[in-house]
């Protein structure tokens, strides 16, 4: 896999998340695509050895951004990368951006990330859409800040409406297109509620990000497919959870 050095434009904290934007002179990412990223430094890194996958949160005029939570060493090091990171080109099959609304965008937790760029593209096309973002509590809801007019739900009711993102969205059948990203149980519920054409962005552990390792598979009707090449966005009807 080819990694490219990218200058960090801005590194800021957004509640419990980190928003990192970097100059990306290459091909513009499609909504729902992801990148493999790691701190820049001494050629090859042994610690961590693998790069980390992140959805592209946003992209505008040569600047891409990632929104992430610090979980382990990989994200902790990226959260300190104020000058340069190493990053792959945009990878995978993103959302297919619809031409007609209304569309619903549902995000759970840090799974809201890829919806930002999707929402931007839908707006550019003038496609009517609503954004529903669910979090455990108000402390995590800062991830909603970048979205124009999101409906926010928290499980404990400490911010926005009380309940799940599905509670907040109501009947999904009234949308022509449904997009979702979040924990697997949420995605499964969205698939059930919205039907087989709902576009779900799944998350599986990755080795390479470019299809080489067969590590990131998800069960589908066609057997195990690689979420980094055939995904990370699948139609609900394709998945065989």
């Amino acid at each position: 896999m080819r990694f490219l050095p990218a200058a960090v434009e801005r590194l800021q904290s957004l509640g419990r998340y980190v928003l990192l934007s970097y100059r990306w002179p290459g091909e513009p990412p499609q909504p729902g695509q992801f990148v493999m990223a790691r701190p820049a430094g001494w050629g090859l890194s042994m610690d961590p050895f693998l790069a980390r996958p992140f959805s592209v949160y946003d992209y505008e005029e040569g600047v891409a951004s990632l929104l992430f939570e610090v979980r382990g060493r990989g994200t902790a090091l990226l959260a300190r990368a104020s000058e340069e990171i190493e990053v792959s080109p945009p990878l995978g099959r993103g959302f297919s951006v619809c031409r007609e609304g209304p569309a619903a965008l549902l995000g759970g937790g840090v799974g809201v990330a890829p919806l930002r760029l999707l929402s931007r593209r839908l707006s550019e096309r003038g496609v009517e859409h609503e954004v529903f973002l669910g979090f455990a509590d108000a402390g995590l809801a800062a991830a909603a800040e970048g979205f124009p007019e999101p409906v926010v739900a928290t499980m404990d009711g400490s911010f926005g409406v009380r309940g799940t993102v599905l509670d907040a969205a109501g009947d999904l059948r009234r949308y022509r297109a449904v997009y979702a990203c979040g924990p697997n149980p949420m995605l499964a519920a969205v698939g059930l509620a919205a039907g087989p054409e709902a576009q779900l962005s799944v998350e599986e552990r990755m080795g390479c990000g470019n299809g080489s390792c067969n590590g990131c598979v998800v069960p589908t009707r066609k057997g195990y497919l690689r979420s980094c090449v055939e995904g990370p966005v699948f139609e609900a009807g394709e998945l065989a959870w």
Partner: protein
Amino acid sequence: MVAPELSVELCGVRLATPLIPASGTLAPEALGEAAGVYGAVLPKTVTLRPRQGNPPPRVAESPAGMVNSIGLQNPGVEEFLRALGAWEVGVPVFVSVAGETVEEFALLCGRVAADGRAAAIELNLSCPNVERGGQVFCAGPSAVEEVVAACRRAAPDVPLLAKLALEGVVQNALAAEAAGADGLTVMNTVPALAVDARARRVLLRGGLSGPAIKPLALRAVYDVASAAEIPVVGCGGVCSGADVAEFMLAGARAVQVGSAGFVRDPAEILAEFERYLREEGLAASELAGALLPAQGARPVPSER
């Protein structure tokens, strides 16, 4: 300054560079990166029938390495051969096969030989063997000998590389050589376990690869190259041009790059190796085994 000579000869096949992608670590989708880097290409191991592979999670990170348990997911040999065209990028194509029985190994070799496009066949001798109750083939020299001999008969004209596990590598290498292998790939991933202490569960039961295992692979290559006459292909933790040189000095004729390809552009590894050769004033083929005990006086090295 003249560019150093990178080409090497392996079992009668001329490779423009000594680098080969390790089986299962380079997808056709990523072949673009491989142009000009690899002396041969080597797709993921293929089996007689399609294999689903193991349920996820399939990969976990470990210090300076990773543990994988892919379970040989592949479309089966017929579909594989239909799609083999994607691998033809102007360098020899090696094909890796694995059977669950001796007969399957032989059938696979026969089929691949009949197809005619494989410049060499690599026998993945560390896959599950249903004939022997879940034991791996590499479990012992007699199993290795039996498989290699059957494959030799089934594909008399295609160079055969036996890819060996770490456990018992020298004895298995000698068995493969005796049974007619043309070369030896040393080594595969090493059996490993990844545990999630917080979730209190086994994350993954699989094989360790990456830089962590490099000292083990170097030792295995050195010991095998000291004991066997046929050429050795080094594999395990190669990440840099210096690593390529280390393996070749320790006795490898060519070197496979596996996990490192997930985190680096392999062209960088080749560039580093080229710089090394230039600075040392050597050709790639001159490294081969420079550290080994003199030819003719090659006992199996003793411990410590």
